[in-house]
């Protein structure tokens, strides 16, 4: 049980720090959402390929995998796995394979919800 609580605390801290870094980028550089997300997924992929992000995942668990950097890390992890087992072709198969659930869920649920709901005016 004690170990369980620790995973939550670690997830909170690591995830929180990653988001706070995003906030600095937004406030200091006036970047838009699209740019922030692209930067984070790319940064995750690069840190993942350097083996750095794995350490963050080991510590933070979901705190490192839930932010979009984790998506980039996941792409690279899958790519490396396939490259190691099937060679160069793996560079083109591994990434999307590993991220398949996320991509498919995002498209499918995204489609369903946008068909079902309407945007509401802000005041």
């Amino acid at each position, binding site marked *: 049980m004690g170990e369980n609580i620790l995973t939550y605390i670690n997830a909170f801290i690591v995830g929180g720090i990653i988001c706070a870094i995003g906030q600095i980028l*937004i*406030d200091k550089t*006036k970047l*838009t*959402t699209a740019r922030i997300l692209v930067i984070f997924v790319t940064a995750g992929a690069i840190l993942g390929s350097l083996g750095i992000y794995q350490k963050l995942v080991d510590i933070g668990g979901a705190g490192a995998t839930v932010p979009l950097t984790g998506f980039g890390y996941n792409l690279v992890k899958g790519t490396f796995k396939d490259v190691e087992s099937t060679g160069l072709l793996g560079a083109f198969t591994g990434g999307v394979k590993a991220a398949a659930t996320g991509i498919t869920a995002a498209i499918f649920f995204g489609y369903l919800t946008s068909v079902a709901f309407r*945007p*509401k*005016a*802000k*005041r």
Partner: protein
Amino acid sequence: MANKKIGKQTVKLQNPPSVIATASIVGPKEGEGPLRLYFDEIIEDENFGEKSWEKAESKLMRETFSKVLKKANKTTDDLDYIVAGDLLNQCLAANFGLRESGVPFLGVYGACSTMAESMSIGSLLIDGEFAKNVVCLTSSHFCSAEKQFRFPLELGTQRPPTAQWTVTGSGGVVLSNEGSGPYITHITTGKIVDMGIKDVNNMGAAMAPAAMDTIVTHFKDTGFTPESYDLIVTGDLGAIGKEICDELIQEKGYNISNIYNDCGLMIFDRERQDAHAGGSGCGCSATVFAGFIYKKLMEGVLNNVLFVATGALLSTTSSQQGESIPSVAHAVSISNTLS
């Protein structure tokens, strides 16, 4: 040629047209603001019974048009021209909202300066005896503007404190060669000014130099001073833009602080309403003029007003290409008396 042009950019009208009626319809948020009692109609929700934001804005324009005609006791047969425009691509709201009007139509784009631009053109048409009655009209809609210029409504983003809030609303006026005022006496047409501001979330700062340029030019061309007016009002500079404009004008040797206000600050209560630096959009200056300022002129509380609508002439393409924001401001001088 009658010498109507005075100075560099100003026309002194020889047959000053009267503003014989105005009408304004605003959205729910504007209807909770400090000027709520002055608007003709406050719609209950932003959809306005339509299926898209663009259709809702077109309807705003259409309803304002029929309202202002009714208030002026005119029919479309009495009208010589409609001069109208809005913010949406190809002036969608004006073109579709007024397509059934059956009146000769001049579509104009001056971004948020459209109200003063259309009133300028309308006044020139009447002064030149090309027209007897002209309707000048514009609109903006928070949701359609967000969709076109910024982000989808449901995207979870933060607005920086310098950002402004597009007014949902439409305002229109009927200008006529007959009438007993208030009269449009002078028109100062602004030139495009670009001081290199690129931040689309700080339009007030981008537009302030254009407003300053037009106001100062107006003083120089006409020989008027700040004392000639009891209100000088810019369109939608917001809190930051207004302060900058005020200071820039002071540097040029004129002090307008006491009589200076901005429609973007008048329409929302920034303490109570989430509007950041203030209101913006064509509908901002249009509804504040048609609703509040016109009524104060009629009551005689105000007698001489310089109405300076300000427009940021950017497009989504230009800002994505890293361009700065060119701006323009048009001034219309309105007076209860003819000198």
